[in-house]
């Protein structure tokens, strides 16, 4: 049998298996999880299949891998297992090709003295196993520069573009959500692109600590040290999380020194400058201080507007300038809040399939823009309505039935029902001990009037908005 025939057979088997799964797990689950699977090839006694995302691969592994293996065995008893890998979509495929080219380049650069064991592909794998994933979207190009961050930006660029270490470490600090991580990832993306042979590791301080503690538990600190000390560029994000963790700090200190001695670049970020990090050992503080310390300041209105415009352009969504100005004006805390706010507005618009307007923006970000949903009280409603119609508040409780007071009273009852959770009997009580049926009648009457009297409807709407603040 030729390998081509063998492949055809495997394809037929897969068609059988997926149709069996379709009946077993139902159409919905099939569409979500099995249909996106593609058969890659048979590799000895292993069947290799691919899925488009890492999430799906975790999912298929957790829920269907046993069943898949069993079904393959029914078809062919020699199959040992089914292996799920992530097949990158077109976009990341391009990146992979790029990486392959880079690897080829790397091996041509790699002389016999290079510390890597085996070939450069392994070296690449080794680096990616200890580095956290680096999101390719965070680049220098996608970083919006303004007065508050231009110094940190320039420093990060310098580190990324320099052939020899310009300053060590680069210490980036600033409040939360101002772009420290973005700058670090931009450094990583840049170096990986132009000098793929350099081993760039980015990780959070939490991950550094986690790996170190695990290495201690598994009595495998030698490997841990090897992994970190063979890094060309080490970037540790949010270093404040190892404050007060003595043994981790000790290990970090040694790693730090070893790398600096070998002329490798270190980039560290924190929420405060080194000297203000409480619970950080003195000697480590002085190390962190001895390179370049660059801070990122709070955003300005212009920078926020710039960030929103660039973000909107990147995601390719039409956003009215009124909405962007509103967001830049209202969400001043930091960039993460700002971008998060924009994302929420866009996600909502896509979910319900409507355009983005100032009103929907206010509605969606209502929890962010206002500290609480204070409930309106019936008393406040009575006061506001009386003022609006120019009658006395006491008329809300009075027995007078003249239209000039009866109508506003009905409006107030209507609003009390719409804006509070109070029961109708209780609303009645607050209006001079009236019966709940009177309240029901008022609600019905106001609804009718709103139908055919637009002026009246507008009045009620205005009152409602004033009361909701």
């Amino acid at each position, binding site marked *: 049998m030729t390998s081509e025939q063998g492949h055809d057979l495997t394809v037929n088997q897969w068609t059988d298996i997926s149709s069996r799964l379709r009946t077993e797990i139902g159409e919905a689950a099939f569409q979500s999880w099995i249909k996106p699977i593609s058969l890659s090839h048979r590799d000895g006694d292993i069947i290799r299949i691919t899925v488009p995302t890492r999430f799906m691969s975790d999912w298929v592994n957790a829920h269907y891998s046993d069943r898949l293996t069993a079904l393959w065995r029914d078809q062919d008893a020699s199959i040992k297992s089914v292996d799920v890998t992530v097949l990158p979509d077109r976009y990341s495929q391009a990146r992979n090709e790029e990486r392959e080219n880079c690897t080829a380049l790397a091996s041509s650069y790699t002389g016999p003295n290079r510390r890597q064991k085996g070939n450069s592909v392994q070296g690449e794998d080794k680096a990616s196993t200890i580095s956290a994933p680096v999101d390719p979207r965070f680049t220098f190009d996608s970083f919006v520069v303004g007065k508050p961050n231009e110094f940190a930006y320039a420093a990060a660029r310098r580190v990324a573009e320099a052939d020899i270490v310009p300053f060590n470490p680069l210490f980036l600090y600033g409040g*939360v959500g101002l772009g420290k991580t973005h700058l670090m990832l931009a450094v990583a993306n840049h170096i990986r692109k132009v000098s793929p042979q350099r081993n760039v590791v980015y990780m959070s301080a939490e991950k550094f600590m986690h790996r170190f503690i695990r290495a201690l538990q598994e009595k495998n600190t030698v490997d841990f040290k090897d992994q970190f000390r063979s890094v060309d560029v080490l970037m540790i994000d949010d270093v404040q999380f190892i404050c007060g963790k003595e043994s981790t700090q000790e290990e970090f200190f040694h790693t730090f020194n070893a790398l600096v001695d070998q002329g490798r670049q270190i980039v560290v970020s924190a929420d405060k400058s080194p000297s203000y990090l409480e619970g950080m050992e003195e000697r480590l503080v002085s190390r962190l201080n001895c390179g370049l310390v660059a801070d990122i300041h709070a955003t300005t209105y212009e920078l926020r507007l710039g960030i929103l415009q660039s973000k909107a352009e990147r995601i390719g969504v039409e956003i009215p300038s009124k909405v962007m100005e509103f967001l830049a004006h209202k969400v001043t805390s930091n960039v993460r809040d700002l971008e998060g706010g924009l994302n929420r507005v866009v996600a909502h618009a896509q979910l319900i399939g409507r355009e983005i307007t100032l009103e929907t923006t206010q509605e969606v970000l209502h929890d962010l823009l206002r500290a609480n949903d204070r409930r309106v009280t019936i008393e406040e409603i009575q006061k506001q309505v009386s003022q609006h119609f120019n009658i006395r508040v006491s008329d809300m409780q009075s027995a007078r039935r003249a239209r000039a007071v009866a109508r506003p009273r009905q409006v107030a009852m209507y609003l009390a029902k719409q804006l509070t959770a109070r029961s109708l009997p209780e609303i009645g009580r607050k209006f001079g001990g009236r019966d709940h049926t009177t309240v029901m009648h008022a609600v019905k009457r106001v609804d009718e009037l709103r139908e055919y009297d637009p002026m009246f409807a507008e009045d009620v709407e205005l009152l409602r908005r004033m009361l909701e603040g």
Partner: protein
Amino acid sequence: MNRAHQLTFDLVHRSALSREDFLIAPANQQAVAWIDKWPDWPSQSLAISGPPGSGKTHLAHVYMAKSGAHLIDGSQINQINVRDLVETNPTLVIDNAEAVVSEDGADIHEENLFHILNLLKETGHHAVLCSITPPARWKVKLADLKSRLNALTHVAIADPDESLLAAVMVKQFADRQLRIDHGVIDYILPRMERSFRCVHHIVTAIDALALREHRNITIPLIRQVLDTLNQEELEI
């Protein structure tokens, strides 16, 4: 009045928590739409907030049935290894998530939730967070967490309208295997506080009284329950 009271066992009744049993209304349709849309979400996490009894737990169970999510309570977050939790579970539900807000300075909760949100990004895994108040309003001390909470995709379950209240009431009676006349619901609705919480109080009280006094669920019985509840409210 001196009636001999029959003692009743507080037997746990099982609520129907599947997607088919979820009552869709304007108040919650966006939350349902997000759950239905999974895994096609714009971000890793979805926060659902709403008053007690508004169906957050029910929706969380719908999500669990759909995704096989692992359920944890916000108050347990300090007792777990967060990296293991997120790495071994592609989907998570954190119920009662605002329990991480520490009043006594036990910041381990906040720090752990912060790491969970980062790990979700790192692994591409998904989580649903349920809480009464929207995460953007929690009084957290950790600024890093605060800004991540502000950025969460969030959907609020709004106050119920009357038809939803009626439907929830019918469902809660049905969960207790009680079949109720429409006239009964029509009688209760205009006389009760219009909240999910109150539906739960009333149904529980009516069930208990009917069971204790071996009575059918009739308007006089309901009037008695509503009077008692109103009395309690006035005393508070």
